[in-house]
């Protein structure tokens, strides 16, 4: 960086690098661009395989059609509610747990860590888990989505590492000035942890937004389903030719562009959140990694 003159080899390397990375970008972006193009295209061009980068037979009718399905909006609203509530609960629990674990003088700390890690390696299995959630009376309610997955052990460990990296003196000083434990956490530690908090919020929010399996397990009414299940069902309906062949009435598939439109509408909000959180994101997620 001292001189601006770069060696020839370095420039060649950069050139090749740029080409390869552009290739990677195209490969990654293409499916997405294709979906956008499809969502605006006329169905018969899609079926004929003519849609690549740009829409053909441009129309927004499909958007109007999907948007006019009340079930889509009901499920969409559910997704938003589940994501917000679940992320809030997850953040509170994860932060508290991680903060406690970051205190080296805590007795039984190793035990507490192992309790968390144990669940990362072993799980009760699908059916026992279902029986448990069901006996707790959580099925068919938002709590079945929100509570069983409230703490992600991976996120917990990342956060713990971050808290451990904060200078101890700071907290001691705060204690001397008369703050109790919660005050320290709330007024000193959390304001210093914006990066990791933003990262965790993003991690949790994206995973709750995308998740469908817990909802599928514990919910029995479509009015309660998140939009991911709506979408999954839509796509399955379009491809289940073999089993659906049994009855004429069942094959009536959702059109290819309806799928594309639904995918677009589902991905858009979470995509819109990314740029705003991104500046925290890189520093936040690296934290655990750099610490030796």
């Amino acid at each position, binding site marked *: 960086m001292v001189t601006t003159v770069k060696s020839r080899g370095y420039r060649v390397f950069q050139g090749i690098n740029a080409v390869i990375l552009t290739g990677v970008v195209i490969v990654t972006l293409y499916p997405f661009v294709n979906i956008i193009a499809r969502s605006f295209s006329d169905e018969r061009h899609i079926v004929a395989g003519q849609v690549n980068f740009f829409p053909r037979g441009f129309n927004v009718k499909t958007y109007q059609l999907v948007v006019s399905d009340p079930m889509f909006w009901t499920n969409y609203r559910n997704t938003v509610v589940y994501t917000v509530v679940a992320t809030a609960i997850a953040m509170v629990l994860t932060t508290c747990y991680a903060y406690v674990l970051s205190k080296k003088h805590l007795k039984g700390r190793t035990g507490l860590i192992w309790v968390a890690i144990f669940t990362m390696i072993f799980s009760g*299995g*699908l059916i026992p888990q279902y029986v448990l959630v069901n006996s707790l009376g959580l099925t068919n309610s938002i709590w079945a989505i929100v509570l069983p997955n409230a703490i992600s052990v991976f996120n917990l460990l990342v956060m713990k590492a971050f808290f451990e990296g904060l200078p101890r003196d700071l907290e001691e000083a705060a204690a001397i000035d008369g703050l109790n434990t919660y005050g320290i956490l709330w007024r000193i530690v959390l304001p210093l942890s914006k990066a990791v908090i933003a990262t965790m919020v993003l991690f949790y929010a994206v995973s709750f937004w995308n998740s469908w399996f817990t909802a599928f397990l514990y919910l029995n009414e479509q009015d309660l389903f998140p939009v991911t*299940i709506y979408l999954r069902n839509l796509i399955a309906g379009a491809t*289940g030719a073999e089993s659906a062949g049994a009855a004429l009435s069942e094959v009536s598939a959702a059109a290819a562009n309806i799928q594309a439109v639904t995918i677009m509408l589902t991905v858009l909000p979470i995509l819109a959140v990314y740029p705003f959180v991104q500046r925290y994101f890189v520093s936040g997620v690296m934290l655990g990694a750099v610490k030796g």
Partner: protein
Amino acid sequence: MQHISRRQALIGLGALTFVVAGCGEDEAPKKAADSANKAGAMAGYAAGQQFKATQPVTFDILHLNNPFYPLKKDWLLWQEITKRTNVTLKPVEVPLSDYEKKRGLLVGSGQAPLIIPKTYHPSEEAFVASGAILPVSDYLDLMPNFKDKIAKWKLEPELNTLRQADGKFYLLPGIHESPWVDYSLAVRTDILDKHGLEIPTTWDELYTVLKALKKEYPDLYPMTDRWGVPTPGGNLLKIVAQAYGAKGGWEYQHATWDSAAGKFAYTGAMPQYKQTIEYLRKLVEEKLLDPESFTQQDEQAKQKFNSGKSFVISTNAQAMINDYRPTLTKLVPDAKIVKIPVPMGPVGEYKIQTRLENGVMISKKALENENFVAMMQFIDWLYYSDQGQEFAKWGVEGTTFTKDASGKYTLTKDVDFLGLNAGASKHLQKDFGFSNGVFAYGGPLKLVQSTFSEEELAFQNVMNARQLWPVEPPRPFNDVEREQATLWETPLKDFVTQQTLKFILGERDLSEWDAYVKELEGKNMTAYINLVNTAYDRFKKQHG
């Protein structure tokens, strides 16, 4: 998908042994005759009679939610069921995408609804050992319409194929009066006419036609095929194999009944199976059949066919209307296609098609329900009586359909279904809940055909004239055998599928057939088929 679900079910089974066994096993099942479970039941319920519970009753039912017609609580279907039968159905809504998975979970955890429809044989077998579902064959006396139709349509042999080692069956199947063949080939008749070719009626004629087309269009593959994922050659292998008297593609089963020998033979090693492969090899070798046919996505196959780059493809009635005709006529304006009667082979004018459909399982805990008898009567009425079947398919006379003196059904003007009343403001499935795959399937020939187009009727008339291939005798495994068989089946199936493709695509020469059969031996083919024949002999001895 099927695969995962079965595994899922097995997991369920394992867990069930711990979870449910404790509370369920030691209670002896109560006899159906107990007055304790007769609340709401009709005393003299008989075939052809309208069922109406003597008091309002409620049953929960697993409901497969089809994205094309998502469940609505205000469907006329629900209201009318309650009005006619005093039964309120409480649906547990499960998306179509993962129906089997959730069913396995609910049955496995003991939380399943009493009525579990849309179960395809043999997926009910996974639940048999755990004792979570009802051996319905013990309670057929409660179902006069079912018994009546089995006798009238002579369905006993088909029914026997559902029986387990204990001689009972656990699934109430959907039943057809007459077998309904749907899958065949779509052929571009305008191209055939242009070159003076006739519609092929046999596989040999198809070969000649394809060869003639290849001469005219040397750069193209005259035939390409779809339905290759996830089962390679799902439909094509199936219908070619049928013509030679074997089982392939979607229909592949390890054992095939050899009536001459009076026992089962291993399908993948049968000479008939070899002939099937030889035929397809010939098509691929002479570049008449697109080699990608067995592995490409449907989308690609449709594109080739619809853009006029290929002239023959697998089809069913729905694909003709949805997948081919609309796009094809836009891209190739003069194109004409027809669904040809399934081409025939050495076995002659036969069709192989079961008359059983997916069906209903009943949770065993229903026995303890005070409304058990009423529930069985209700299921009998809804799924098996003439009125029930008509109701489930067409809805309410005067509201959704009318029927003339000859028994011809017509939708009312403002109701659409399958494009029969295109442009109408309401839809039979979406707005009323009728012709819902959960309730409506099978039935008398007249009812099944009532929604067919002219084109499909013509196809059916040809197919109906063909003889039905005899039903194979039952050969249910017991629990120990099934466990063993499952261990052998997966590697065998993978091997057969893989080698079948290699032979067809020419990666392995057919002169190595004997070596291939030897390799099958190495994968326990003989032990497997002996197991099947043991089960067959035992069942024959015990249950005639």
